[in-house]
């Protein structure tokens, strides 16, 4: 029964199916009944910058199954998001937490009972600033393209599943358009998840006449009497936005619960910044240190006027000889 969570509000339907078919296993039915129902609550914390907000807007425009909410006031009581999600009948939460007005963290969660992934969002470029010529229908469903590396490790599998739920637009979504014209690619490189969005461009190869496929009818009103295979060249044009996610922590339940994964390699941006500052400060410190050491050394050798050892009296100096 717990497997049926992804059904969303399909409780009644499921009961009906069971009642009508009389089967013990609710999964033994036909494919038609299976529905992927996802709704995403998408919101940010306070203190996001313009770029963060635009990214949110970009994602929202590409996710017809999402619900945008006002900025969340708190950054500590994130469990409130669960209530919010329940209020809006959402079973996924995509939450952007901004810190210090520059760092952005993305939380992805399955709303009622987890898991939750916290990721650091870097290299953010919104659609507006990228000037890519790609474009797609508002509300069309994306193909989700995953790197095979996602299957290699357990935590990546969790992340992949969450990404599928959040960014994959379900067929039954309200404002959905019936065509597929863009692809969302997630690739793992350097321990980070790189995200790109491309438009799918189909162009005919040569002047061959396309076949009379059902869906091809819509595509091309050109004559297609012959039963040859359609020769289409697929190319991609980037749409934007671009961003890179670094997984930090995975919690077992939604915005709470035990931590089941923690990324050792993640260095917080604060640490990086302070290291940079410290490296600068270190230069001065080392110089001063060297100077003091030098002074002490000279003092020990009796070369200084003040402090340190006194200069040995020369037995041949005038003051000794003619005393």
């Amino acid at each position: 029964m717990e497997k049926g969570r992804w059904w969303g509000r399909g409780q009644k339907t499921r009961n009906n199916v069971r009642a009508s078919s009389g089967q013990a296993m609710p999964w033994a039915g036909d494919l038609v009944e299976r529905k992927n129902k996802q709704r995403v609550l998408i919101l940010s914390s306070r203190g996001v910058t313009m770029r963060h907000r635009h990214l949110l807007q970009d994602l929202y425009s590409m996710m017809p199954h999402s619900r945008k909410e006002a900025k969340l006031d708190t950054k500590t009581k994130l469990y409130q998001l669960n209530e919010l999600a329940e209020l809006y009948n959402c079973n996924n939460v995509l939450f952007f937490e901004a810190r210090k007005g520059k760092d952005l963290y993305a939380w992805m969660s399955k709303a009622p009972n987890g898991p939750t992934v916290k990721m650091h969002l870097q290299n953010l470029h919104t659609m507006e600033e990228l000037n890519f010529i790609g474009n797609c229908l508002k509300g069309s469903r994306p193909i989700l393209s995953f790197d095979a590396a996602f299957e290699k490790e357990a935590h990546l599998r969790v992340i992949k599943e969450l990404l599928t739920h959040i960014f994959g637009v379900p067929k039954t979504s309200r404002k959905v358009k019936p065509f597929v014209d863009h692809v969302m690619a997630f690739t793992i490189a350097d321990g980070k998840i790189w995200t790109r969005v491309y438009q799918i461009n189909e162009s005919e190869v040569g002047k061959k006449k396309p076949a009379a496929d059902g869906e091809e009818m819509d595509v091309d009103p050109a004559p297609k009497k012959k039963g040859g295979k359609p020769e289409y060249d697929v190319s991609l044009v980037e749409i934007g936005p671009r961003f890179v996610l670094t997984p930090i922590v995975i919690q077992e339940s939604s915005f709470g619960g035990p931590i089941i994964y923690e990324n050792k390699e993640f260095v917080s941006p604060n640490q990086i910044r302070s290291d940079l500052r410290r490296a600068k400060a270190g230069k001065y410190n080392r110089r001063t240190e060297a100077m003091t050491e030098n002074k002490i050394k000279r003092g020990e050798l009796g070369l200084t006027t003040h402090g340190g050892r006194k200069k040995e009296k020369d037995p041949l100096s005038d003051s000794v000889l003619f005393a």
Partner: protein
Amino acid sequence: MPKKGVLKSALDAHKNRNYKLERQRKQEKAARKRKQAAEPLNEDGESGEEGGVQLKEPVNVKDNGEKKSKANGTKASKASKASKNEPEWETEESESGSDDEDVPDETALGLARLDDSESDISGDDSEEEAEDDEEDEAEEEEDIALSDIESLASEDKGDIIPHQRLTINNTTALTAAVNRIQLPYAKLAFSEHMSVTTDEPVEIEDVEDDLNRELAFYKQALSTVKDARTLLKKEGAPFSRPADYFAEMVKSDEHMGKIKQKLIDDAAGKKAAAEARKQRDLKKFGKQVQVAKLQERAKEKKDTMEKINILKRKRSGADVTNTNEEDLFDVELDNTETSGDRRRGGSDGKNFKRSKKNEKYGFGGKKRHAKSNDAMSSADGRDFSHKKMKGKTGAAQRPGKARRMKSR
């Protein structure tokens, strides 16, 4: 700072041990405090043991082995440190009770414990991990904590290995989580989820290399799109957008216009730059050509003048020039002669003199002031002769009387 540096250099060899001692003392102190706060009853029994703790920490770790094996490395390093001292004063049967009474530091640990025990239930392999982590912790005693290193400059800490955060990777819990939320892909039509995974992992050698990295992303997306396309077609789901299907796009027309404008501007800028460069090159080259042409012309003129002069000298100097020279220049001289003839005769049979005269005295054109001096002519001193100016030329005509008498 300087003092520390000197110290550091002086005590470099012994640093590790000293540091350890210091920390142990700190921990003892903390433990003692906690003990006093929590259980004043146990005090007498434990104080003897405290002494034992001081110098042989690794032994302690082994003593507590059966307890520690429960921790599967999910604790933060701080919590793990505390846990080593904890069993010394904590009685076995009152573990949960003492956790409740502890100071806030300890409650965190208690939580970690609870979590651990929970995850223990989920799998066996976590216990193996625990042992590994325990060894790691023992090793890490030698290291310096990250917080202590922070005060050093980055150059100074080059060869010091800091504590690494203990990574938590509870595979069983993660797998359970995946199984809990996973869509039943096998039973779903592809058009329901539309997620494709590549067969081969994408490999990018250098992440900083923008071009190759983006190419790898593009290739991955393209291959999956092709797969997805065939799958969708097989299921009969609509894929491509018909040309006459208009709907709102993600990027508005305004935005697209902006992009188009940007592209046009870019292209125009590029074209203008290319044009400018071409012009620049041309100018540079043109100047060279001009200079070369001028030089050539000057040289030509010089040559002709020389030849004319030689010719003149030959004619007027009454064969002063030796025959050799003449032979040498024979052909050219002929050439010059012919050219001179041509000039004299006019190019089309007209009288050269006549044409010159026409030029000077006018055959048409302004006739006034033509003979009057101008700046050039008055500055021209070629015809000037001081002898002529003396006026003695006529006086010498008639010789003296004696000469005349003599000649008679």
